[in-house]
């Protein structure tokens, strides 16, 4: 069964929200568009995105008890298979980056000064990464030599993590899918190995010969 890879978008500007959502569609990610931190947190109760794009400035957002920091903290603590792009006009400011880093140490930054095309380009590159003989393509993990596809979104998280040099922390249900991926890799004779690092951390490594 396919679990479509999803992408959370938190953006208070409707026009920008629409453009980023369109970019997600283009790379075969199912967008979860939200325009306030409260709504983003609600969606994170039931959804497990592989990518999140967060605007820091919520001045146009409807009233929200939570702030963007709460969304970052939730993503960091409970969505270890989700890679976070902070998309903001203040993303270039070092003190701002440090403030975000304190909440989510792995957050990556794209400046709004570089335009939405820079963000879309970043998303495209992330959603086309390769690791070993695996390739993220159309929101799925493909084994290039055989053309076989691993359908669960956890595969995308793991390949993205390997390409970005980050570990992936999985929830129990996702860990089951990761174990299925391990069997899939073994069956295909892939040199990529899924390593259980303990504490629900997983990573892909290349078997050395």
């Amino acid at each position, binding site marked *: 069964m396919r679990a479509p890879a999803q992408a959370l978008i938190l953006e208070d500007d409707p026009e920008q929200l629409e453009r980023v959502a369109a970019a997600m569609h283009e790379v075969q990610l199912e967008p979860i568009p939200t325009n306030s931190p409260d709504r983003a947190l609600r969606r994170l109760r039931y959804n497990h995105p592989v990518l999140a794009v967060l605007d820091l400035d919520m001045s146009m957002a409807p009233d929200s008890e939570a702030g963007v920091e709460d969304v970052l903290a939730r993503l*960091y*603590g*409970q969505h*270890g298979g989700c890679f976070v792009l902070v998309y903001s006009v203040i993303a270039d400011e*070092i*003190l701002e*980056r*440090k403030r975000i*880093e*304190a909440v989510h*140490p*792995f957050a990556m930054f794209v400046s709004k000064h570089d335009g939405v095309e820079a963000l879309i380009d970043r998303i495209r590159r992330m959603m086309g990464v390769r690791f070993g003989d695996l390739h993220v393509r159309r929101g799925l993990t493909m084994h290039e030599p055989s053309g076989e596809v691993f359908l669960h979104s956890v595969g995308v998280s793991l390949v993205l993590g*390997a390409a*970005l*040099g*980050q*570990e992936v*922390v999985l929830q129990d249900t996702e860990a089951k899918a990761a174990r299925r991926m391990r069997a899939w890799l*073994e069956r295909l004779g892939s040199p990529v*190995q899924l*390593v*259980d*690092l*303990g*504490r*629900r*951390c997983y*990573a892909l*490594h290349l*078997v*050395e*010969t």
Partner: protein
Amino acid sequence: MGAGAASEMIRPSMRRDEVGRESIGRTILVVEEQPYLWAALRQRVDPALAYVRSAAPGEVARVWRRCRPWPWLLAGATPVLPPELTELIGAHPIPVHWVGQPPAGLPGSPAVHRDWTELVAALERLGGLDLNGVRLLRNRGLHAPDGRIVLDVVNLEGLLAAPAGLVLNGGAGEAIAAEIDASRLPLRLERQGDVLRLVAERDQER
């Protein structure tokens, strides 16, 4: 080496009850008044080698606690020693690098760099560490020369990052020796005065 050998993993000090997200693997903790050195390192240090985290002197203890079990490496640029730093370093094998004159009282023998570019170059060299075939694994752990992945050897990872050795007292030597034994890595601990360093185990010792 086949996949079977690679999948054999050693966890001498595995603790399943530890909170997952707080254990983020190797970290470089940068202590400075303003986070400029941190920003430079974060752009240049491959996260697969270590995550770079930032702490102003007054934040050291709080940020240190988020680098479980302790930072892999400490980099600093402050003229004054943050008050808790000596106690936090304790007997842990943590290489210390300093840009500019290190503050009085800084424990061990820090590697001193004239500017941040020297520090970056030193950190980049760590990415290629190879001692008798033992190399750093991405994010945490070690690659054994026989292909095994060896996890939970934080003491070894720390000392490996200081090829010239570290001034270590207390129980650090015993902890490192225990990790070498449990992981069956071809390494040996060598002591010269109060400096401990890792060296290649000679074939006849194996």
